[in-house]
């Protein structure tokens, strides 16, 4: 991270124009331009075309222009004067003297001087403008890229780190950090560059807590000497007795992002003797605002997630109520009808008929009981109360318990293949048996009465797998994941009338998840569905 900062600083330094460098070596510039003029003179002397003074002037002008672009204004003027002198001495009659015979020659020389000086100045200004333009261009690119980065990068931390690096590249900063105010009004370090989280913590939240608090409450920056901000408040004005805030070794910039309230602070520590010009301050402010935007977006995302969770819980409740109301009414209605029938016509009916009516009631009661069980399971699922009671259980026992939950007729259709015969697994037997029971029950229900359902147990080094296969209608492609959601009912109409269908698989999914396993469904070659429960062991 640090090397990146240094690389950025080096990059910036390369943009310092060579003119500045040369200015530092001023004597060299003058010597060079003298040499240039001399060289040009010799060139002109050897070239016969120098008879025409206008040629001479043009070529000397060239030297002036070069001197202007390379060495700046002062040297350009010097070069101009030098050119005039040389022109006078070497090319204006009488030759090799500084006297000028003709008045028109004087005029020509003066004009030349004027032109040379002006050209020099213009060239210099052009150079400065070009430099400013390229600087401006760089800044715009920075801002544009930052905006794009903030907009496109979903990971706030990454986007934040990007912005901070940009800031440090722009303003020669060695350390940056963002301090945010948490929901419960506590300070928290959100991101750092150039210093560790722990250091930022001890510096800003422990040592300089008051300074941060000041910036937050007054929305004014506190600036250290190298980095002076507009509107920066010196310690004296803000705090009557806060001599501790004088000579602050760093700067704190308020970040506004919620309706004018300052909820974050940007901490900057610059390298020694860095001066931030106005333009850079503006860019800095713009970037700080990006930081604010990021923080705001982060907040919104969190609120949205919470709202979503509440919405889902609400939807669940509604669906549950609808289901209860619908699925309970039918059996209750038929029970009531049957009982009333028996009460009113009971004695007149044959014993056989009475008995069969009562059998119906008995079945309906069982049905209601199953639904109550399912609902209880589902609500416990939603409350996250499925903590498995892990025990080492032989797999054969799991299978045995599962099969025991089906009557003889159903059992005749279940074909078992236990490839993990001798082994035990650490799991909650009751819960896993329920998963298998639900899956097999579905398989039996939705496949032809003469078809078989396969139950296989396979063990690998890391997993225990149960596979349930049937020859039913299979799954609707694309819904392999949907079916495990609560209240999902199959597309086919016949399924939606079967009570409890919407919950069984959801319960399986929840129980398997509580065991940190996974459950998958897919279609089977030749028709039907395959359900796979994988548990870590």
């Amino acid at each position, binding site marked *: 991270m640090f090397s990146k900062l240094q690389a950025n600083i080096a990059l910036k330094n390369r943009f310092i124009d060579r003119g500045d460098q040369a200015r530092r070596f001023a004597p060299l510039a003058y010597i060079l331009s003298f040499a240039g003029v001399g060289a040009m003179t010799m060139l002109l002397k050897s070239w016969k075309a120098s008879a025409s003074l206008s040629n001479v002037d043009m070529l000397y002008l060239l030297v002036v222009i070069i001197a202007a672009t390379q060495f700046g204004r002062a040297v350009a003027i010097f070069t101009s004067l030098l050119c005039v002198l040389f022109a006078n001495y070497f090319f204006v009659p009488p030759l090799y003297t500084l006297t000028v015979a003709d008045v028109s020659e004087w005029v020509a020389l003066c004009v030349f001087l004027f032109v040379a000086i002006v050209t020099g100045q213009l060239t210099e200004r052009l150079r400065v403008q070009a430099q400013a333009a390229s600087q401006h261009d760089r800044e715009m690119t920075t801002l544009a890229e930052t905006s794009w980065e903030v907009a496109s990068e979903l990971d706030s931390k990454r986007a934040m780190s990007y912005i901070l690096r940009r800031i440090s590249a722009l303003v020669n900063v060695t350390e940056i950090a963002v301090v945010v105010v948490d929901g419960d009004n506590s300070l928290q370090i959100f991101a750092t560059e150039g210093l560790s989280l722990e250091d930022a913590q001890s510096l800003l939240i422990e040592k300089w807590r008051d300074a941060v608090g000041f910036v937050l409450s007054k929305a004014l920056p506190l600036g250290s000497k190298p980095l002076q901000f507009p509107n920066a408040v010196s310690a004296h004005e803000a705090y009557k007795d806060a001599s501790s805030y004088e000579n602050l070794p760093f700067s704190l910039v308020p970040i506004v992002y919620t309706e004018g309230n300052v909820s974050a602070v940007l901490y900057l520590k610059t390298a020694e003797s860095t001066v931030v010009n106005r333009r850079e301050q503006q860019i800095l402010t713009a970037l700080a605002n990006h930081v604010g935007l990021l923080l705001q977006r982060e907040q919104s995302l969190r609120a949205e997630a919470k709202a979503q969770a509440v919405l889902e819980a609400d939807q669940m409740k509604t669906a549950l109520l609808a289901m209860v109301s619908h699925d309970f009414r039918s059996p209750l209605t038929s029970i009531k009808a049957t009982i009333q029938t028996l009460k009113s016509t009971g004695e007149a009916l044959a014993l056989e008929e009475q008995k069969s009516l009562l059998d119906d009631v*008995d079945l309906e*009661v069982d049905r209601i*009981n199953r639904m109550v*069980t399912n609902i*209880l399971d589902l609500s416990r699922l939603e409350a996250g109360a499925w903590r498995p*009671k892990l*025990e*080492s*259980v*032989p797999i*054969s*026992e799991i*299978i*045995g*318990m599962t*099969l*025991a939950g089906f009557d003889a007729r159903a*059992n005749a259709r279940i074909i*078992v293949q*236990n490839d993990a015969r001798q082994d*035990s697994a650490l799991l909650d*037997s*009751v819960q896993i*048996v329920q998963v298998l029971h639900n899956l097999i029950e579905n398989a039996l229900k939705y496949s032809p009465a003469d078809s078989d359902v396969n139950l296989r147990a396979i063990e690998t080094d890391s997993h225990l797998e149960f596979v349930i296969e049937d020859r039913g209608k299979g799954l609707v492609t694309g819904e392999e994941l949907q079916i495990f959601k609560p209240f999902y009912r199959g597309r086919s109409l016949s399924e939606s009338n079967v009570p409890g269908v919407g919950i069984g698989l959801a319960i399986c999914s929840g129980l398997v998840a509580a065991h940190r396993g996974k459950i998958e469904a897919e279609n089977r070659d030749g028709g039907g569905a395959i359900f796979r429960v994988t548990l870590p062991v």
Partner: protein
Amino acid sequence: MKVLVIDDEPQIRRALRVFLEHNEHQVFLASSGEEGLDLAALNSPDLVILDLAMPGIDGYEVCKQLRTWMKAPIIVLSVRDREEDKIKALDLGADDYLTKPFGMGELLARMRAVHRRSAAEDEQDQSDFTCDELHIDFAHRLVSLDGKEVHLTPKEYDLLRYMSMNVNRVLTHRQLLSKVWGPEYADDTHTLRVHIANLRNKIEINPERPKFVQTEPRIGYRFKTESWASV
């Protein structure tokens, strides 16, 4: 036999009374724990059916108190998913349990099972046991399936013997472990499970679908010799 029913719900009391009297039992009804204790002391029932979830003095307390002086078997009524309750009751001295809603056939079968056991306790010397293809000769420690001898390890045999002396009754993990291995092994459920699995492999025609050794999830095992059909 004389049956005492302790349940706070009138419908259950009524239904049980009608059913049990129809099956030629003498029935006493109590609507609370206190009443139940009084009636038990007064009438010395042969069997007690006790609801665990009652207001006032709860089922466990009743069970505990009954066990201080009463030897008759107790069947507790409980709801699904409250295995801890059932285990607690069984440890406090109950003999079996029924999960509400229960079928009457199941009730009768369990009543028979627990009653048989208490009657048999007086005759300790049962020389053998037979059920369908399974035959155990206690005198010679021989186990056979359809006449063919089955070789069991000593612990497997002890397990089978204990279960066969308590047919159709639920036996908790703790009870099985304490009896066969000793009280200090009462929590070693895994060992028990492994032995049960091995036993099943040896004496069950289809170990995957055991006929005799039934699992009572989270509670223990039951050696079943009859299936309770619906009434």
